């Protein structure tokens, strides 16, 4: 198919999709309408379970099964990336050279690294109270660790990054999620039921299972993203063709 034909086909198809989509949207409730039945129910359910952040309640309690699937996707993607980027037979590793970095950058990175890790931890811990949670905090933790790379170089990063441990931590956290689900079954309730004490509203331990799953997700996301980024950094910096 020539480029011209492709563009013509695409233009035609795009036009049709655009027209029908726009016409369909015209039938939607207007933007900002007050009618959200599922949302109302979710809010009530979250408050009944003493979880202040309703989004966390939906993610880690009411629709926790989705999150189980989502964490499995993360786990599978990390595994897949590791296996796709595994060293081939005709590749070598090359020790990277220390990099030259502006002194201001180095100082800034060194200062910021602890701040980032603290912020990430804070986001994970407050997941059921304020915006944030395991996922957001995990990403911040993982990205924060790579400040070591920005500030110094790859060699420094490798020293603060126990990859083998994180690899296992990622897997264990993924497994812990399923195990938490099984706890409900063993307790005679449904899979992933919230069988823990609910605690006082608006405290760090409120919400029963929510803070636990939240922490598990935080560990999984942080270690998973670090392993993921490590694979790419290895490729970009270390691995060379033989």
């Amino acid at each position: 198919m020539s480029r011209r034909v492709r563009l013509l086909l695409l233009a035609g198809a795009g036009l049709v999709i655009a027209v029908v989509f726009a016409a369909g949207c015209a039938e939607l409730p207007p933007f900002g309408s007050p009618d959200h039945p599922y949302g109302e129910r979710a809010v009530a359910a979250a408050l009944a379970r003493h979880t202040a952040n309703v989004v966390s309640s939906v993610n880690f309690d009411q629709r926790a099964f989705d999150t189980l699937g989502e964490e499995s996707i993360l786990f599978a993607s990390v595994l897949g990336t590791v296996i796709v980027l595994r060293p081939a037979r005709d590749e070598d590793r090359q020790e990277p050279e220390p990099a030259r970095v502006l002194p201001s950058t180095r100082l800034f990175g060194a200062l910021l690294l602890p701040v980032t890790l603290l912020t990430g931890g804070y986001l994970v811990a407050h997941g059921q109270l304020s915006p944030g949670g395991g996922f957001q905090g995990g990403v911040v933790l993982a990205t924060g660790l790579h400040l070591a790379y920005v500030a110094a170089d790859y060699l420094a990063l490798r020293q603060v990054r126990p990859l083998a441990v994180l690899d296992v931590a990622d897997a264990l956290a993924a497994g812990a999620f399923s195990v938490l689900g099984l706890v409900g079954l063993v307790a005679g309730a449904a899979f992933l039921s919230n069988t823990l004490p609910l605690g006082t509203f608006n405290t760090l331990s409120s919400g029963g299972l929510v803070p636990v799953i939240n922490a598990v997700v935080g560990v999984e996301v942080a270690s998973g993203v670090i392993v993921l980024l490590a694979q790419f950094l290895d490729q970009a910096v270390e691995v060379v063709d033989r």
Partner: protein
Amino acid sequence: MNAWLLAAAALLVGTIGPAIAVALHGPSHRRLVGADLAGTGMPVVFLLLAQGYSRTSYQDLALILAVLAPAGTLVFTRFLAGERG
């Protein structure tokens, strides 16, 4: 309608808009100027929104961005400078 939201809207038009415009043109390192400006302006917008909506918990957004945006920009400068390591 309050002054904080008004200021946020002004920043969106006056700072973020130009930043996006710059980020959409030219070679990478010139685009980076736009990205950097957006990285500076956006946390301020988030703080103003937090105040304007009277939701102090939105300030976390600015905090996270203040931590992540410089890291992102530094990574960009590192790769675009074409050096090794």
